C-alpha cells in the first residue's frame, strides 16, 4: 500500500501530528546538544563508518570467527537464512524445553521476523518487557519507531490501554502511577518466565561476546532469572574487536536519545553458570544487500533511530505509515530490498532534504540511496503510470526549446483566463491548500531578449 494516504490520515489529526512532530524534534534537539558536546564527533562518525565498511567487506570471515569464539565460550550458534528459519529455531529451542512463557527485550529483528504471532500460534506466551514495546503489544499494534516504539501514543492513550489490560484507574495519566503499574505487572512476568530472548546491539568477532543496550535494565532481568537465553541478531551487527565498542557506544545513545550512554550496556560472553545461551544469526535478505554496490552501506546501520527523529516526513506521518518494522529513511531503503512491489512508495515518501545523511552516526548516505531506489523502482516498472507518462511528456518538451517556449507562452496566457474551478479542483493536488503563482505575461527569456535589444539600440 501507498505511504501517502496513510500519511494523509495521520496529518488529518492535526493536533496529534503536531505533537508527534514536536516530541521527536525535542529528541533531535537533545541529540544535537549531545553531539556538540563531543568535539571529535565527526571523526567518530568517520571512524565508525570505516569500521563498518571494513567489517562488511569480510563479513563471512568475521562471522565464522564470531561463531568459533562464541562456541568456545559455551554458547550455541544457529544460522537462519530467513525469518521463517529464525522462528523455527526459536520455537524448537522453546518447545524442546517445554517453555510456555517467554520474556523478550526489545528486538527489532524479531519484529522483522514476526516472531510474536508465530510463537503465540504455537501456544507460547510472549511478553515484550520494554515499556514502550509492552504498551504497543497490549494495544495490539506494532512499534512505530525502533527506539521509541510507543512514541505515537500520548499518556492519555497509555492510561486507557493500562486501564483495559492492567486494571489501572480509568482516566489515569500520571506517568509515575502508570510506570509503577507496568513495573508490577512486568515483574510478575519476569518471575514466571521460563526463557528470555534479547536482541543484540553489537557482537564482537574477536571475543564471541555481544552487547545489549537498554535504558530499563529489562534485558538483564529477562535473561537472569530463567536458565535459557536466546539472542537473535542480524548478521550485520558485528564489529571486529572489543575496542571498537568505544566508538559505537559513544555514538549510539547520543544519536538515539541524546544520552551520553545507555543506562545499561550489558556484555554477554557465554552462558551463565548452569544456563544455556543460544545465538541465532539471521540473514533475511542482508546478503542480498551486501552484494549490492549501491545499497551495501545501509548495513552500517546501528539502529539508533536518529534518521527518524530528524526526518520531517517521518515526524509528520508517524511510523505506521511506513508499514514495515523499521520505518523512516533507513526503513525506506531496507524494505524495498526485501519486497520492491510492496514497498515501492517508501523511497518517494521523502523530500530529499538530506538531513538523515548528516545526522547518521555511521555516515550512511541515506538520501542518495533513496534516490537510487527511485531509479531502481522506475527501472523495475514500479513507478505510477501518471508519473511515468508525466516525466516522458516533460522530457519530450524540454528537449525541444521552441516547443518549450511555445508551451510556456500558451500556459501563461491561458491559465489566468481559466475560471477558478478549472484550476482548483480534485485533479490538482497542488491547489488543494496552495495558490499557484501569478503567471507573468512574458518569460525571463523574452524579457532578457528585449533588454539586450534595447541595450544594443542605445549603443548603436
Amino acid at each position, binding site marked *: 500500500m501507498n*505511504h*501517502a494516504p496513510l*500519511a*494523509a490520515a495521520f*496529518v488529518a489529526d492535526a493536533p496529534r501530528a503536531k505533537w508527534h*512532530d514536536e516530541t521527536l524534534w525535542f529528541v533531535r534537539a537533545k541529540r544535537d546538544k549531545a*553531539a*556538540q558536546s563531543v*568535539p571529535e*564527533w*565527526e571523526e567518530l562518525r568517520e571512524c565508525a563508518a570505516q569500521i563498518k565498511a571494513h567489517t562488511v567487506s569480510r563479513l563471512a570471515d568475521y562471522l565464522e570467527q564470531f561463531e568459533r569464539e562464541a562456541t568456545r565460550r559455551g554458547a550455541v550458534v544457529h544460522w537462519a537464512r530467513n525469518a521463517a528459519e529464525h522462528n523455527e529455531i526459536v520455537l524448537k529451542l522453546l518447545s524442546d524445553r517445554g517453555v510456555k512463557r517467554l520474556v523478550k527485550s526489545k528486538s527489532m529483528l524479531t519484529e522483522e521476523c514476526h516472531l510474536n504471532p508465530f510463537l503465540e500460534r504455537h501456544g507460547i506466551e510472549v511478553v515484550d518487557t520494554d515499556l514502550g514495546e509492552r504498551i504497543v503489544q497490549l494495544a495490539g499494534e506494532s512499534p512505530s519507531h525502533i527506539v521509541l516504539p510507543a512514541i505515537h501514543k500520548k499518556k492519555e492513550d497509555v492510561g486507557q490501554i493500562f486501564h483495559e489490560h492492567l486494571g489501572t484507574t480509568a482516566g489515569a495519566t500520571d506517568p509515575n502511577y502508570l510506570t509503577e503499574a507496568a513495573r508490577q505487572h512486568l515483574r510478575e512476568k519476569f518471575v514466571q518466565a521460563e526463557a528470555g530472548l534479547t536482541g543484540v546491539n553489537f557482537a564482537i568477532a574477536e571475543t564471541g561476546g555481544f552487547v545489549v543496550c537498554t535504558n530499563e535494565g529489562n534485558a538483564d532481568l529477562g535473561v537472569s532469572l530463567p536458565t535459557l537465553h536466546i539472542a537473535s541478531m542480524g548478521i550485520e551487527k558485528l564489529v571486529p574487536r572489543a575496542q571498537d565498542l568505544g566508538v559505537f557506544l559513544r555514538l549510539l545513545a547520543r544519536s538515539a536519545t541524546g544520552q551520553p550512554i545507555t543506562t545499561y550496556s550489558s556484555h554477554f560472553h557465554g552462558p551463565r553458570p548452569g544456563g544455556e545461551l543460544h545465538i541465532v544469526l539471521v540473514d533475511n535478505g542482508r546478503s542480498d544487500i551486501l552484494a549490492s554496490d549501491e545499497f551495501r552501506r545501509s548495513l552500517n546501520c546501528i539502529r539508533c533511530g536518529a534518521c527518524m527523529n*530528524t526526518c*520531517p*516526513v517521518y515526524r*509528520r*506521518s508517524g511510523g505506521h505509515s511506513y508499514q514495515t518494522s523499521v520505518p523512516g529513511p533507513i526503513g525506506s531503503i531496507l524494505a524495498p530490498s526485501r519486497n520492491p512491489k510492496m514497498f515501492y512508495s517508501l523511497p*518517494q*515518501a*521523502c*523530500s*530529499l532534504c*538530506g*538531513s538523515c*545523511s*548528516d545526522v547518521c552516526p555511521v555516515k550512511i548516505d541515506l538520501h542518495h540511496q533513496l*534516490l537510487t531506489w*527511485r*531509479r*531502481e*523502482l*522506475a*527501472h523495475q516498472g514500479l*513507478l505510477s503510470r501518471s*508519473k*511515468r507518462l508525466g*516525466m516522458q511528456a*516533460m*522530457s519530450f518538451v*524540454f*528537449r525541444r*526549446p521552441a516547443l*518549450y517556449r511555445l508551451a*510556456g507562452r500558451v*500556459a*501563461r496566457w491561458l491559465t489566468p483566463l481559466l475560471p477558478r474551478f478549472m484550476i482548483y479542483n480534485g485533479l490538482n*493536488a*497542488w491547489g488543494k*491548500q*496552495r*495558490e*499557484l*503563482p501569478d*503567471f*507573468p505575461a*512574458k*518569460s*525571463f*527569456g523574452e*524579457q*532578457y531578449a528585449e533588454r539586450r535589444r534595447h541595450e544594443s539600440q542605445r549603443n548603436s
Partner: protein
Amino acid sequence: MPTVGLFIPCYVDQLFPQVGLATVDLLEQAGYGVEYPADQTCCGQPMANTGCTEQARPLAERFLAIFSGYDYVVAPSGSCVAMVRCHYDEYLAGQPGFEELKKKTFELCEFLVDVADTSRVDHRFPYRVGLHQSCHGLRELRLASSSELVAPAFGKAQRLLQMVDGLELVTLARPDECCGFGGTFAVAEEAVSCMMGNDRIHDHLTAGAEVLTANDMSCLMHMAGLIRRQGKPLRVMHIAEILAGHSK
C-alpha cells in the same frame, strides 16, 4: 571580462522572470559579462528525482553542450546547481568538458561570495528577514553549515544579507528544516508537504519575519502558495531580488 553563462531554471524562466532579471543585474554589477543561452530549458532534475533517468539523460547532454563554452555558469537556484554538480556524473562522467563544467557551475550566492568576492551591497532593505535554507544548497552544495554536523557555523547567503543596510535577520527555532516542496513530493505527498510548509511559515512568523527569502524559488513557490491561500502577513522574495535592490 569573464563571461557568465546564465542558467535560469525552467520554472524561474516561465513563472518568476523577476528573479532572473535580478540575477543579471547582480552579476553585471559584480563586473561580469552575462549571456543567456536562449536554447536552455530544464536541467532534468524532476525526471532524475522521480527515477526516470533515461528521460533526464538527454537534458544533461544538452546542458553540457549549451554551457561548456562559458567561463562560469551561474544559477539562482541551489537545487538545480546541485543537480549539475552532484548528480550529473551518472550521465556525463568521462565526457569532454564535464569535469570543468562541474567546477565552474555555481549557485548565485556562492558565486558572489567565493568567486566575485563581494564585500558590499549598496541597497537598503529595512525589514526583518527570515532566511529559509534550501536543502539542496545546504546539504549538497554546502552553502551553509547544517545543524546536524559538529562544525563551525557559516553561511554564504547570510553573509550577503548581512551586508544589506537596514536588513535584520531573524532567528528561527529550526534553522534548516525542509519546507516540504521536494519536487513531485509536493503533489504525491500533498498532506505532509503542506504541513511541512505551514510549520516552516509558522517558524518565520513567530520569529518576527516580515519577508521570507531563500536561494531557491521552488521552496518559495510552495510556501508562497500556502501564505497566499491563508492570507498570512509575510512577503516572499528570492534572495537575488533583495540583493539587487528590486521591488522594495
